[in-house]
């Protein structure tokens, strides 16, 4: 029932998470808090971004100067803010992909959960766009690399009239306006990202967008320490006269750039689209496990008390006006497409009492696959088979199908979620002498498979929630489970619901697992909370803090290392830009044609609408770098021929020869020049007849 065999990824996560349980404690386990952590990091980035904006200047030289001031003079406030801005973004990428992988591994993307999965996919792209526009704003060598490569790549789409990479052809081509545009984008895109993140959490009730305080403190602390120990890099001002040959890439945001450099643009564009669609469509991909039947409302036993709607973790129940004429205002209604059949609503319904009734055992809301009557029968059967423990006591286990006790065993009833058990069920088992004790074996304390199942169960037993188990019964159960621990019943009760430290999901040997296995034989599952939560908060802060610091420092390292050799050390770049409208072919109009035209439109010549192509040649020494027709731009070929191209050339003395021929009027321009090209130089050749034909913008060597 409801249980899939966990795959290798799910087992892997489980193993790592159990390790982290020990360092952070289950409440602060970062792997169970990836969504909230993503939000937390987002807000750190927003706050530090707003702070940085106060010191940021836009302008060709002012931009870098302001960033340099932020990083040097103001290192202790704005500099820290800049490093936080950078590293929190890097971590956000890590958190985002881990979140994606984990939800996928745990199978939490199908059925009712498709919405969160599907809406999470565009979040990825917006995180990337937010980040990449940010790198640009620093206007250092890395920014230059990102700007040039991004624009060159975007130009391959062919949707921009003028190639945008032309803006970075040479220092003379760069304008302040580009920075204003980038600032705008770097604010607008994150705003859209926020909107998407908000949509992403709409379908679930009480979405967790804030991590526990302790984890938030640890994360922020690790970020601040990293910001002080390893400030975000600043790689010298951008200089379009030369080319960044080796760049310290931020591998979280920019790892696609080496690929963009090497692979054909269409391959990357198609790959990105296909990949995105494939990931977004995963919820509907085979194999599609059958969806369990949604919960069902029985109006005869529903008076509209709302408890099921309040407890549903998936917003799958809403209260609607009464439809059966009973004198109640509301009735519960199940939104079948959102229901995951966890049964929490059945456990919440006050009518779900398992005590014998005159008629059938019907409740207000029930699960077709495991109705209350069947649950009761299962409990009675399991109680019969429950083996006696060492002390002769028989313990009945109610266990979660997603936890350590998911396997069938004598004396055990497996539920889709432990919160499916109504509190009166514990009372029933104990007062009717079906067992001497009840163990409730939930799923992992770090995170309930059905979000609030553990919380509700604990609260119901602790009477914090209405419709709680009777005190006596709850305590009897608690004592049985808590054992002779110190701390009293309340503590024992809370403990009891902690997960088993071992999990069937993990086949790891090891002491913990063996202990669990041994206990399982006796029908009781040792709750693992005892093993993991005995860690004192101070120790958790220290252990978790150290681990987090390690992670953030690792991220800080990957944020600039290993360096990427974009252009070989002894090579330089020649960029060629062409803009010329071919002269239209015209012929003299015949007398008839002239007569047909209105008097005011009569011209002696009739010209073709489409411009002719322009022929372009570029030779380096004896090698032809380019030799082609450049067609006119525009849908109807009415615009000028435009071209932007880059060539990697070896440094040294070369003879560069270029020619442009207008295929309309046959006019020809040509140039030949001996050039000494330094390693890392950016040599730009710009052709525009309006500007006087060929313009050479010689750069300088990367070191010069």
């Amino acid at each position, binding site marked *: 029932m409801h249980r899939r065999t966990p795959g290798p990824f799910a087992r892997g996560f489980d193993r790592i998470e159990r390790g982290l349980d020990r360092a952070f404690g289950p409440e602060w386990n970062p792997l169970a808090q990836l969504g909230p952590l993503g939000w937390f990091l987002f807000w750190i980035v927003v706050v530090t971004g707003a702070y940085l904006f106060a010191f940021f200047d836009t302008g060709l030289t002012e931009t870098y100067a302001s960033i340099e001031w932020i990083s040097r003079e103001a290192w202790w406030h704005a500099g820290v803010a800049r490093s936080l801005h950078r590293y929190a973004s890097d971590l956000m990428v890590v958190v985002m992909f881990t979140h994606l992988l984990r939800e996928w591994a745990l199978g939490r993307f199908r059925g009712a959960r498709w919405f969160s999965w599907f809406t999470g996919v565009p979040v990825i792209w917006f995180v990337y766009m937010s980040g990449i526009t940010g790198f640009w704003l620093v206007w250092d060598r890395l920014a230059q690399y990102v700007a040039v490569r991004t624009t060159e790549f975007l130009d391959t789409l062919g949707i921009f009239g003028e190639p945008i990479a032309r803006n970075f052809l040479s220092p003379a081509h760069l304008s302040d306006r580009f920075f204003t545009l980038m600032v705008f984008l770097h604010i607008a895109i994150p705003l859209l990202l926020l909107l998407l993140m908000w949509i992403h959490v709409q379908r679930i009730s009480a979405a967790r967008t804030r991590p526990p305080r302790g984890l938030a403190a640890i994360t922020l602390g690790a970020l601040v320490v990293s910001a002080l120990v390893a400030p975000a890099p600043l790689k010298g001002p951008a200089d379009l006269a030369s080319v960044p040959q080796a760049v310290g890439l931020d591998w979280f945001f920019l790892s696609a750039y080496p690929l963009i450099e090497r692979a054909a643009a269409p391959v990357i564009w198609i790959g990105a689209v296909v990949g995105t669609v494939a990931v977004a469509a995963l919820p509907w991909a085979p194999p599609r496990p059958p969806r369990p039947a949604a919960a069902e409302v029985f109006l005869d036993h529903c008076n509209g008390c709302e408890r099921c709607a309040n407890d549903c973790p998936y917003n799958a129940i809403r209260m609607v006006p009464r439809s059966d004429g009973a004198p109640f205002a509301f009735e519960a209604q199940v939104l079948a497409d959102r229901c995951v059949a966890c049964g929490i609503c059945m456990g919440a319904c006050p009518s779900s009492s398992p005590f*014998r009734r005159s008629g059938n055992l019907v409740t207000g809301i029930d699960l077709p696959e495991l109705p209350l009557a069947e649950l009761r029968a299962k409990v009675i059967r399991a109680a019969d088979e429950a083996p006696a423990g060492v002390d002769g006591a028989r313990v009945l286990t109610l266990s979660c199908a997603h936890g350590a006790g998911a396997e069938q065993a004598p004396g055990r009833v497996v539920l889709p979620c432990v919160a499916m058990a109504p509190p009166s069920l514990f009372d029933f088992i104990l007062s009717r002498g079906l067992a001497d004790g009840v163990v409730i074996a939930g799923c992992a304390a770090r995170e309930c498979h059905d979000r609030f199942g553990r919380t509700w169960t604990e609260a119901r037993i602790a009477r914090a929630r209405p419709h709680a188990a009777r005190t006596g019964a709850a305590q009897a159960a608690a004592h049985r489970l808590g054992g002779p621990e110190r701390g009293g019943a309340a503590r024992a009760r809370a403990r009891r619901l902690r997960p088993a430290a071992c999990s069937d999901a993990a086949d790891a040997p090891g002491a913990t697992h063996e202990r669990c296995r041994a206990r399982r034989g006796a029908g009781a599952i040792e709750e693992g909370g005892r093993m993991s939560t005995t860690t004192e908060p101070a120790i958790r802060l220290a252990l978790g803090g150290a681990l987090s610091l390690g992670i953030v420092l690792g991220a800080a390292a990957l944020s600039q290392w290993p360096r990427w050799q974009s252009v070989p050390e002894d090579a330089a770049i020649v960029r060629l830009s062409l803009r010329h409208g071919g002269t239209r072919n015209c012929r003299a109009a015949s007398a008839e044609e002239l007569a047909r035209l209105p008097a005011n439109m009569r011209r002696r010549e009739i010209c073709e609408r489409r411009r002719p192509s322009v022929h372009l040649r570029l030779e380096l020494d004896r090698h032809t770098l380019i030799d082609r027709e450049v067609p006119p731009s525009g849908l109807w070929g009415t615009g000028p021929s435009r071209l932007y191209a880059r060539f990697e050339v070896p440094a040294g003395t070369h003879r560069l020869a270029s020619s442009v021929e207008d295929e309309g009027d046959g006019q020809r321009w040509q140039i030949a020049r001996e050039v000494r090209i330094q390693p890392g130089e950016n040599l730009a050749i710009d052709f525009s007849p309006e500007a006087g034909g060929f313009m050479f913008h010689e750069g300088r060597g990367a070191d010069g």
Partner: protein
Amino acid sequence: MAELVWREEFSVGDPAVDHEHRELIDLVNAALGRIAAGAPADEIDAAFGDLLAAVSGHFAHEERQMQRGGYAAYPEHRADHERLIDRLRDLMDEAHEDPAAAAEALVPALEEWFSGHFATHDARLHGALGPHEH
């Protein structure tokens, strides 16, 4: 044996609550009737089971009404509900263990259990909820 009878002063002004109170009176009377008639233990058990399920539902409903209406005496009222459920459960356990011996004591206990809460807590709800549409 005196059956419980619905009285106008039981009305709290909310038709839904009143409706359930009437139903509960019927269920209490059914239980009393079975005890008086010396019905088999199973049947008495079942009558109590019916009552428990119904009264749990009713209390939940009443609590929701009180919460919605911002009823000041909600905590005390709810505490009394919990006390009543505990008491009912005790009665059920007694009846379950020894139906014959428990039967006689049960009748006054049940009456007290129900009428007591009606006369005090639920009566006070009257003004608070009042007749209004839900």
